[in-house]
């Protein structure tokens, strides 16, 4: 074999090694991203105070019963009702502390807006325990805000199929592109 041939073979090996490394880097990044996404999916969790209010006090309400912003958020639980619950042990992200505070509100017959209707009764009626002029059921209860257009989509269990369809479509596109390149 000639020296030039050896040089050319060596060059080919180096090119292949370089390309393998590059592919490994891209694949590594893709896998890391994938793990981040998949982990976040499985570990997703959220404070469930609205569920607790619904089960413990039959409440028909939203985040603004405690928070000053429609979407809630840390540090925004500043309504009188929230202040009372905090004084009775409520802490963020603890369902147990909310249950304890609601029991206290019931036992102490607390009325945050001093309109004669108990907070727990107002929660069940759908009126706002922070606002006196809606109390006691004298006016029709305010329906809470509802988001979206009313339609529902399938829950988690049906989730993988769109990803499958997306993946299949993408694979087809990539395969066609590669084939075109070869031609």
């Amino acid at each position, binding site marked *: 074999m000639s020296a030039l041939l050896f040089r050319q073979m060596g060059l080919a090996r180096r*090119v292949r090694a370089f390309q393998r490394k590059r592919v490994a880097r891209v694949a590594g990044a893709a896998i890391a*991203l994938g793990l981040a996404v998949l*982990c*976040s999916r499985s570990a997703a969790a959220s404070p469930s105070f609205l569920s607790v209010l619904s089960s413990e006090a039959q409440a028909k309400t939203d985040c603004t019963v405690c928070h000053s912003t429609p979407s809630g958020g840390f540090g925004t639980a500043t309504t009188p009702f929230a202040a009372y619950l905090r004084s009775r042990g409520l802490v963020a992200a*603890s369902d147990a502390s909310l249950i304890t505070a609601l029991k206290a509100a019931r036992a102490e017959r607390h009325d945050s807006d001093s309109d004669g209707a108990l907070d727990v009764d107002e929660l069940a009626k759908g009126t706002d325990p922070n606002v006196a002029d*809606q109390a006691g059921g004298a006016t029709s209860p305010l329906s809470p805000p509802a988001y*979206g257009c009313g339609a529902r989509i399938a829950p988690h269990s049906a989730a993988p199929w769109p990803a499958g369809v997306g993946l299949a479509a993408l694979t087809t*596109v990539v395969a066609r592109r590669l084939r075109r390149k070869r031609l």
Partner: protein
Amino acid sequence: MSFFIAPPRTRRLVRRDIIRSARVASCARSLALALAFAVAAVGLLMSREASAYPSMIRHGYTTCSVCHVDPSGAGLLTAYGRAQSELLLSTRYSKRAESEGEEASPRSEAFFGVLPLPEWLLVGGWLREGYLWNTSDGKLVDKRFLQMRADLGAHVSVGRFRANGTLGVANGASAALAQQAWVTSNADKEGLNLVSREHWAGAEFADGAVFVRAGRMNLPFGLRNIEHFSWVRSETRTDTNQAQSHGLAASFAFGQWRGEAMALAGNLQLNPDRYRERGVSAFAEYAVSSSVAVGASSLVTYAETDIASKRETYRHAHGLFARAAAKRLVLLAEADLLGASTKQVGSEVGATAFVQADIEVVQGVHAMATFEALQRAERDAKGSVGGWLSAAWFIYPHIDVRGDVVARSVLAATNSVTTTTYLLQLHGYL
């Protein structure tokens, strides 16, 4: 001494071997990209957030419409915006890359250049993941993964007409920060919802200097900063995450002036109608130079029942904002007066302010310090202050990581609390 020369057939074989190995590598690279894309598609099964960088004024960009399809910034990027994202925003790892001039690589194109697209169509996708720790008075009270945003977007332009829309998925865990953009109404804790933050159509006039559009869009107000839970955004209800409204808007860009005014028809994805805020929102900004711009914004809305106070409410926000750049430093500032007027309580006034210093240490690596203050427009409200320390690294075109430490002293009518939030984020833009 003489050297053997390889026969032509052998040379052909070697060349073929090199070409074949390059093809294999190209195939593997494409498959790796496909894997990344598939993973992103899986990520689209959950969701919360949008991106905008007013700090691009450092590079002389005082207007937003060059890089974004939204004339006031944020959201889907234009082809030019994609290229600048690689050339100006991301870290560049070799001198060779810097010497390539103004040419962006195919990596900056939609889906990293895997899918060729016609000129009239722009597409993009957002995937933002995070992990959050919250402490209250020093005690850890909350830690969790956040699915912040998983949306796809498309923009079509035909002559002077343009249409834009985004569609994504939000999981139950992100309901509080995505529900105002829900299209479907699955209130279950584990439920999924489709979200559409933006969908609008419009037409350009005066050679593109004026753009009129109708649909659901970001409210024209203040800095369009990415920190959607900063008080200037959350208290004025003008964040780009979910606080968009339906309505009719007209934007302009003449010389050093740019601005937009919008008639708000309310968020039609919120029911019943009594909660929808209707009114006007507008801003105008003047570029004093290529590195300094100042603006003013104003918002007045009416809701039969305010979503927070549950009262018939007129809500106001009026303020000033500024952007300035000097070498590697960018300063962003905004101050707004907040007002709320109800029959029961009368008029109450508050205020909020935001100042951020952003230093680009090396290209693509940012260190930021932010101060914010808030006095809510509520009876007996006391002042609250907050400070952020943040770092962001634009690792690769359209991929960045960010870390924030946010300390806030929140003073309410009857109590006060000091909170600290630690937030790590990974963001990819397809």
